[in-house]
């Protein structure tokens, strides 16, 4: 009961080119108190999944249960707070008034001052919402999400459009809130954010979950770099023995090394095979890493991906 469960969730949207299958059957179970990152490139189905978790959109198939209840009931009980991907504030209210108004809608809200303190808004609590900077607006939106004192906090790409300092502050507030024993789920397409702020990462691509585990494990799997070099005459099996290499491939004179630690690999490569040239190291990037994890594209993968 004490968890969030998604069972066999499926969701499609109509489009002129036939239905877009945004979510293609996902199963997730999140225990109370976990901080989970929903990681994936744009169009992976993260926001669609979150919309269904919050009851904003009805699944075509499967079910959502939030602490043993349908999403709408959990929301009405004040158990869920969320910061959606897009959204601004309504104008003509002060920061304090807006947060107090939202608190007034819930059965057992947090003290308004506490919410303002936690989000560092006390100093600007008298300012009108239309006069805030982008970073301040995001913090007010965060305050709106937590003022109901939710057990589950959902954040959909909360740091998009924030500067570096803003991000740092935001995540420290989030961790502070999570440390109260709250369950947090946040969507992001930055591996670093997942790594630094979550215990567990769920990777989505093409509407499916392609990996689910501790962030350290996920990072090792998708954090690879590829080293390419022109190096004739050396057996690829020999190259695979180099430190930091996970696998080696050869295409004619070119070798392609998939590296878990490309720094070590390049040092060893040049020490053993100084004749290597045209060396190129590229980060796999999430997109490529996901493709690797998903393996061959699905046969039914030809349809348009969700925006």
């Amino acid at each position, binding site marked *: 009961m004490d968890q969030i469960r998604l069972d066999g969730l499926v969701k499609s949207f109509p489009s002129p080119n036939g239905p877009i299958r945004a979510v293609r059957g996902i199963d997730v179970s999140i225990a109370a108190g976990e901080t989970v990152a929903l990681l994936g490139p744009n169009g992976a189905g993260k926001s669609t999944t979150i919309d269904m978790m*919050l009851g*904003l959109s009805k699944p075509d198939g499967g079910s959502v249960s939030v602490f043993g209840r349908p999403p709408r009931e959990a*929301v009405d009980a004040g158990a869920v707070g969320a910061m959606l991907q897009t959204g*601004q504030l*309504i104008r*003509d209210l002060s920061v304090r008034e807006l947060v107090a*108004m939202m608190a*007034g*809608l819930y059965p057992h809200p947090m003290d308004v001052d506490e919410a303002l303190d936690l989000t560092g808004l006390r100093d600007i609590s008298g300012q009108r919402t239309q006069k805030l900077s982008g970073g301040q607006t995001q913090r007010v939106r965060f305050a709106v999400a937590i003022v109901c004192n939710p057990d589950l906090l959902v954040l959909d790409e909360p740091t998009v459009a924030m500067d570096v300092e803003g991000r740092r502050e935001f995540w420290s507030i989030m961790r502070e809130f999570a440390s109260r024993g709250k369950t947090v789920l946040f969507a992001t397409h930055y591996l670093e954010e997942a790594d630094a702020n979550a215990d567990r990462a769920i990777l989505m691509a093409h509407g499916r979950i392609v990996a689910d585990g501790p962030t350290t494990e996920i990072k090792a799997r998708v954090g690879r770099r590829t080293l390419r070099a022109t190096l004739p005459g050396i057996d690829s099996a020999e190259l695979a023995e180099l430190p930091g290499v996970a696998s080696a491939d050869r295409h004619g004179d070119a070798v392609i090394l998939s590296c878990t630690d490309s720094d070590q690999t390049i040092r060893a490569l040049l020490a053993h095979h100084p004749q290597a040239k045209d060396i190129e190291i590229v980060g796999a990037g999430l997109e490529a890493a996901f493709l690797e994890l998903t393996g061959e594209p699905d046969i039914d993968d030809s349809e348009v991906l969700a925006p």
Partner: protein
Amino acid sequence: MNGLVYTRYELLRTFRNRRFWLLSLGFPLIFFWLIASPQHNKILQGTGLTYAAYYMVSLASFGTMMSMVSTGARIAGERQVGWTRQLRISPLSIRAYFRAKVLTAYTMALLSLILLYISGALLGVSLPAGRWLEMTGLIVVGLLPFAALGVLLGHLVNTDAVGPLMGGLVSILAFLSGTWFAITSGFLHSFGQFLPSWWLVQARNVALDGQGWSARGWITVAAWTVILSAGAAWAYRRDTGRV
């Protein structure tokens, strides 16, 4: 209960909104004084009413219509910035949200009405208490279709278009319903009776002989209320089709 909280802040927000003061309160008041004050005791031909009484109700209907339809601009704006979605993940029901909008619009409309009544009284309009109340009652009922129209426009039109559309629509309705000059015969007279705004303006006849609306007036207002409410419900569902 939480609907009351939301209504309270909605009122506060509206009071702080400059456009509201200008369009719903300032504009009708200024026009009333400009048109009615030079000849306020003269009878406007064909109506049996003094200029003051005629334009008091006419401009009250304009201001109150504007207050009601303004809901559309507010809803469109809140939709556009994603606030409506934020509210949908709160316990505030969509009914309570619309109720807050309509209650706020009515409060603003009544404020506009009272200011025009005071202005009218200052220019010699004098009625028994019962007739003031009857007139107010008819206007309150006559505004029902416009409450629905506000919600309909708010979900049908985007923020850029909603302002001019509202202003244009209310102005045309006001023109066709005899707000600016008396329409006592001819095509406009027969046509106007099909409009809900016509009957809003007709509330003035209470000042004349204590006669409110004819059966036709009640039927017209009821029909428009039903049609526009159905339209508003349709537009809302179409807009939130993701659920």
